[in-house]
């Protein structure tokens, strides 16, 4: 990726273009934007807003669970909070955050002028606010939000109130947005790479998004199908999920998890991509095993289609099927292990420094691996049957989702903020944000392993007294974690408004095109003429 000829010329060339560029202003700039950078920015801010909304819901849950007994909310409202916390965090916060990264970075990393379909890009983003409006609005539907869990299992979902319909439509809209975004990403990556940038020369982040986008195109329609069947069961007299009419409630679970398991990797794989950019940069050493990293990521994606029923070991299926799903599931540990080993090997004999992005990447590595190990414990069917639907599972997927995806998103934001804004963040505050997040995250979720082992089911608003101590600790941790994120908001605003001017390449080891070829901040239009990669 280095060794590019007429490097300086191109840089100046871009500058020249920028000077004569008509950048739209005001509301129009954002509403009608077809610029990948502006759309990326909107994705990221949207995701942060949803992160706050979902976070407040989590704090309602943790407040109620601070002590045994029903103190603050009614059980039906509690169920609604667990449902929408999950939906909003998954579909509103984490997924759009990584699409935001994709928008900002993919064109710059492959030397393209923009995304392949800029207008569709605009539509993909602007579908999100109405979906968010529906999800939040569902709380105010007659009877309140649908307390059915983010998995929306039938027949509980067919008996829920009108909020369920709003939720179903929100999912349809989010699905459309994701599919369009993915088509855009695939087309961009396959067609718009600068001359000389072969697929196997793409930065790891681009590779992870190429794979993720294929996963999204494959499974979002499946989810849309599942919720549409729920909708027709609710209103149009079908009985897909009603045994009395010849249907089967467990059918819903099969369809949902055929989407749901790849969804886990849709969230995790771009996170792998970010970390694969950050760790080499701060190790001042190329990524170890680039090719094996690509193959491992692709293997994880392919395997993710073959393991869905490990979410349903207690739902009832033949023992042979359980054995198959157990074997297929443990297999995922192999490529995942390869990735972790590669990251550690990248650091090995490097020249490490520990700025905030690196700290978050290491936090990701450490805690995501812990989540991977509890995943291995859960993959053993007889053990899973004990732990299924308990807090052990809650702890497991928060290690993967929060310490995995969220920490990696933080790493990415601190890493690219200088390129995006042209200003440096406050390093000291960034480190404080990391340590607070790390400590409070573990305080919140580590103890939940014990709750699950001891037999506390998930999604209950009140619990037996033996669970009281760990729940209290977990709630304290959750509030600490929540408030630590306000510091993050402050850091970002401070960077934008008054950060020190950032050099074009603030990180010594960063070597992809956005660092080597573009100034900081990256101009509104970059790579109007593609660089040539040798």
């Amino acid at each position, binding site marked *: 990726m280095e060794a590019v000829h007429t490097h300086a010329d191109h840089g100046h060339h871009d500058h020249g273009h920028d000077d004569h560029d008509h950048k739209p202003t005001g509301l129009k700039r954002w509403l009608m934007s077809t610029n990948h950078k502006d759309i990326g920015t909107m994705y990221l801010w949207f995701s942060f807003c949803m992160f706050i909304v979902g976070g407040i819901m989590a704090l309602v849950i943790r407040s109620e669970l601070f002590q045994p007994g029903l103190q603050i909310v009614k059980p039906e409202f509690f169920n609604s909070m667990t449902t929408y916390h999950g939906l909003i965090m998954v579909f509103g916060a984490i997924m759009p955050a990584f699409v935001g990264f994709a928008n900002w970075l993919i064109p710059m990393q492959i030397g393209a002028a923009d995304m392949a379909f800029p207008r569709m890009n605009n539509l993909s983003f602007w579908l999100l606010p109405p979906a968010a409006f529906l999800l939040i609005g569902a709380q105010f539907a*007659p009877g309140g939000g649908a307390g059915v869990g983010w998995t929306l299992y039938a027949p509980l979902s067919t008996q829920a109130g009108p909020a369920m319909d709003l939720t179903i439509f929100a999912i349809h809209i989010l699905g459309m947005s994701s599919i369009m975004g993915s088509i855009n990403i695939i087309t961009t990556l396959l067609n718009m790479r600068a001359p000389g940038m072969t697929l196997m020369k793409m930065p790891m982040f681009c590779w992870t998004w190429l794979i993720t986008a294929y996963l999204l195109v494959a499974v979002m329609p499946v989810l849309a199908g599942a919720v549409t069947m729920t909708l027709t069961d609710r209103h149009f007299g079908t009985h897909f999920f009603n045994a009395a009419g010849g249907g089967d409630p467990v059918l819903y679970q099969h369809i949902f998890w055929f989407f749901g398991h790849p969804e886990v990797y849709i969230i995790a794989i771009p996170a792998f991509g970010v970390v694969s950019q950050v760790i080499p940069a701060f190790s001042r050493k190329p990524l170890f095993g680039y090719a094996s990293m690509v193959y491992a990521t692709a293997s994880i994606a392919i395997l993710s289609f073959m393991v869905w029923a490990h979410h349903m070991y207690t739902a009832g299926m033949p023992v042979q099927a359980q054995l198959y799903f157990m074997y297929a599931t443990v297999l995922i540990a192999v490529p995942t292990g390869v990735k972790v080993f590669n990251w550690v090997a990248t*650091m090995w004999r490097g020249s490490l420094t520990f700025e905030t992005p690196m700290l978050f990447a290491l936090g990701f590595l450490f805690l995501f691996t812990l989540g991977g190990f509890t995943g291995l414990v859960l993959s053993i069917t007889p053990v899973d049957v004990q732990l299924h639907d308990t807090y052990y599972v809650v702890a497991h997927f928060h290690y993967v989702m929060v310490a995995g995806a969220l920490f990696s998103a933080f790493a990415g934001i601190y890493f690219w903020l200088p390129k995006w804004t042209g200003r440096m963040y406050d390093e000291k505050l960034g480190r404080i944000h990391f340590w607070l997040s790390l400590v409070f995250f573990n305080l919140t979720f580590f103890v939940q392993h014990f709750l699950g082992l001891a037999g506390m089911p998930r999604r209950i608003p009140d619990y037996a007294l033996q669970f009281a101590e760990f729940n209290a600790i977990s709630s304290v941790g959750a509030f600490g974690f929540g408030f630590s994120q306000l510091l993050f908001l402050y850091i970002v605003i401070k960077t934008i408004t008054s950060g020190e001017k950032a050099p074009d390449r603030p990180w010594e080891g960063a070597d992809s095109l956005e660092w080597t070829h573009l100034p900081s901040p990256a101009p509104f239009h970059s790579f109007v003429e593609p660089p040539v990669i040798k």
Partner: protein
Amino acid sequence: MRNLGVNKWIFAVASLLSSVAAWAEYKLNLQTPHTLLGEKIYDLHTIVTIICVIIFVGVFGFMFYAVFHHRKSVGHKAAQFHENTAVEVAWTLIPFVILIALAIPATGTLITMRDTTEADITIKATGYQWKWGYDYLKGEGAGISFYSALSTPRSQIDGEDVAGRQANPHYLLETDNNVVVPVGQKIRILTTAADVIHAWYVPALSVKQDAVPGFIRDTWFKAEQPGIYRGQCAELCGKEHGFMPIVVEVMTAEKYTAWVASQQTKAVAAKVDPDKTWTLAELKTQGEKVFGQNCAACHQATGMGVPGAFPALSGSKVVNGPQQDQIKLVLNGKQGTAMNSFKHLSDVELASVITYTRNSWSNHTGEAVSPASIKAQR
């Protein structure tokens, strides 16, 4: 194999993470299993956890070595290697072998776990929103049938009686009728449900099986010691999901035989004369009980319901309208709402609860609904 030191490990990590003292009292591991199968599962969990801890320490040993020794601030210069085929093949194959080693004992345990044949006693557990119904189908005690609902007083849950809650060692894990089984016998549990999916979960007996409406699933256990084992519904089933516990009382064979006899006498005594004529007052008194067990969770003891979610019965058009319509609604439920069919209740129970609603709160129809009219409309 049990207590192989995982506790200590977890204990150490937990202590590091928080300065709270006196952890030892609290449960840090799976509940002590009381079945042989449960012990196998417990050991399996211990082995997997230990393997994970060893690999974790190994991998992050390398990482932290690099973090401390290969940092720029100690003057370490970056090497530029970026692949090593031998190492890469090794760390693909070695985990593969470890996983196969894990899958072998797991396969054996899983096959045992799913073998529900040759049971001594078969009990059907039916999940309702929000209680369990039990029917003893085969073996000693066949024919026994009862419902089992949470017996923790509402005042302890709502916080009117915090002292009572704190003094209650079985808060939320106690029922009015426990499932009773003999020790040392293979008990097969068939699970099903009447409305939405529930799950029958008793940690100490190592059983968890979803109860799916319209389908029968099964699981089994064989308790090694007499005792009382407590669990909960483990699949989200609506607003009272957290309040439908399962209590299994394991007795010696003699005590179990005595229990069966007492249940059978009770059943005969409770059998009502089908020709009995009921007075309004009798029906209302019985109806209040039935209402508390089946209806009050949604429609509330005040009959006011929850605005927007569950309709009020007090002043309701249906309750104050023709009897037949109300009977029909209660018998068949209302599709697409939380109002399920209550066909599983007896004619007398239904007659009394409908009579109760038609003559309580602001409703004064003065009508008694006879069990015969329920029977006629079934």
